[in-house]
């Protein structure tokens, strides 16, 4: 469990990135921080592994104040995935994945064995192990980034707009893959995005942030859709444009679901939803 206790961040130039946020990120669940740029979502995420120090307040992991922990040891037990992967361009894919294991003194042989298993886990062909990151597609690089973050089997996974730089098809793919991974791995995932659709797809809990680092609303996707806290949230999730108000129309016996503007969103399936 990660707790933000009245944390605030004011940068030296006077910008207030985060204003007194209190938030609990439950264990083994995916919490998505969503907001436009300047909402402090990345700042908040980076406080967890001390890449950013809060100006005031406390961040606790399982009741332990992170400010009392050595940043390097702290970071080595937290997985971190960022946009574009942030892979080391001069090291091969496998070496990238096992970087932290090697830093922790794991022998090359066993580290590489673990690295290859992780490539299977994230859906990367083992044949790519000896390539350099520059030789992979954006989606593949992102998978390497996820594998690297999982290498030390961390309890916490921080993901900073990890799928922001890939095309929509690959993005959907990676989102599904993350859901599949999360269903087996049960990590505490803190995920940052500016895409509300992505937030609703991935998040057990969604936290919508307003510019200036204030929480606008938090809850499950269904709770937020059912009852947007204010106009900001309504606009942000597209409710006021009618995108979220769906109704059913009958077309020759088939129930077609349309949005507020009458654009079809799908058909109404009968019985139990397929999984």
């Amino acid at each position: 469990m990660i707790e933000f206790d009245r944390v605030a961040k004011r940068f030296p130039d006077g910008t207030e990135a985060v204003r007194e946020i209190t938030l609990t990120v439950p264990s083994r669940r995916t919490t998505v921080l969503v907001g436009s740029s300047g909402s402090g979502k990345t700042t908040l995420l980076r406080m967890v592994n001390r890449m950013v120090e809060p100006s005031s307040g406390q961040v606790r992991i399982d009741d332990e104040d992170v400010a009392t922990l050595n940043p390097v040891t702290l970071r080595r037990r937290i997985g971190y995935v960022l946009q574009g992967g942030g892979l080391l361009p001069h090291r091969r894919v496998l070496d990238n994945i096992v970087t932290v294991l090697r830093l922790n003194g794991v022998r090359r042989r066993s580290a590489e064995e673990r690295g290859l298993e992780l490539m299977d886990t994230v859906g990367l062909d083992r044949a790519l192990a000896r390539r350099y990151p520059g030789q992979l597609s954006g989606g593949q690089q992102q998978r390497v980034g996820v594998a690297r973050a999982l290498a030390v089997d961390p309890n916490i996974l921080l993901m900073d707009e990890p799928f922001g730089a890939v095309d929509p098809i690959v993005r959907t793919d990676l989102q599904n893959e993350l859901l599949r991974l999360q269903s087996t791995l049960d990590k505490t995932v803190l995920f940052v995005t500016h895409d509300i659709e992505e937030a609703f797809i991935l998040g057990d809990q969604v936290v919508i942030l307003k510019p200036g680092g204030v929480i606008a609303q938090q809850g499950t996707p269904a709770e937020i859709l059912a009852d947007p806290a204010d106009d900001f949230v309504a606009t942000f999730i597209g409710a006021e444009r009618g995108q979220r108000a769906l109704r059913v129309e009958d077309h020759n016996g088939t129930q077609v679901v349309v949005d507020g503007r009458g654009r079809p969103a799908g058909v109404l399936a009968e019985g139990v939803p397929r999984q």
Partner: protein
Amino acid sequence: MNLFREAFAWLFAPEQQVGADAVLVRLGEHLLYTAIAVVISAVIAIPIGYWIGHTGRGKQVAVACSGAARALPSLGLLTILTLLVGVGDAVLAATVVFVVLGVPAVLAGAYAGVESVDPDVVDAARAMGMTEWQILLRVEAPIGLGLLLGGLRSATLQIVATAVLAAYVGLGGLGIYIIRGIAIRAYEQMLGGALVIVVLALVLDGVFALATWLITRARRTPVRPGDLGGPGPAETAAGTAQDQTSRSPAAATEGSS
């Protein structure tokens, strides 16, 4: 062309192959001064350059000092320093002059190399739990190696060209043929010495070019079909039409087994 013929004749004459004034001996001296100066420049400039590149601090000061050092006339500096330390310590004076010449180039190469690293890569390395030393030595230094080599290359070339001045304060080196040649108007000797210096500079430049080529080639090699490994049944069936990113993990595991 006559002069060139005379220069070559002088260069390969038996008198030039033996004794303390042999071309090879002078070449050795020249190389030694160059090597000492390059090594000292590197020892001074690389740590400072890495520090500037890693912290992003002190760059203005470094650029200003480098500019000033480059503007110093080497001959004038050598004369003053030799007079200061005495002719007996001319080696010291000459080395200082060459180092002053070499430091700015190495410094620029070192910090440019570190600065060239994508900030996201450094950020990711730090977030993974690398210490600042590990970031510098395992990420910034190797990625910036090409630019550092470029700096060492230009420092070496400038020093090897300027090491001619060693002869001016009685230290020998290949410059002796030029300085002595001027005094006694022996043009074939001047040209012969100059040619050896040119060849030496070209060879050193070639060595650096080769080293740079080797380290860049070791990375980002273009993909050869053989690197893909033998395609398994799952891959041949589905992998050809599909992008690898969209391939299911099951297929990927089967394919590589």
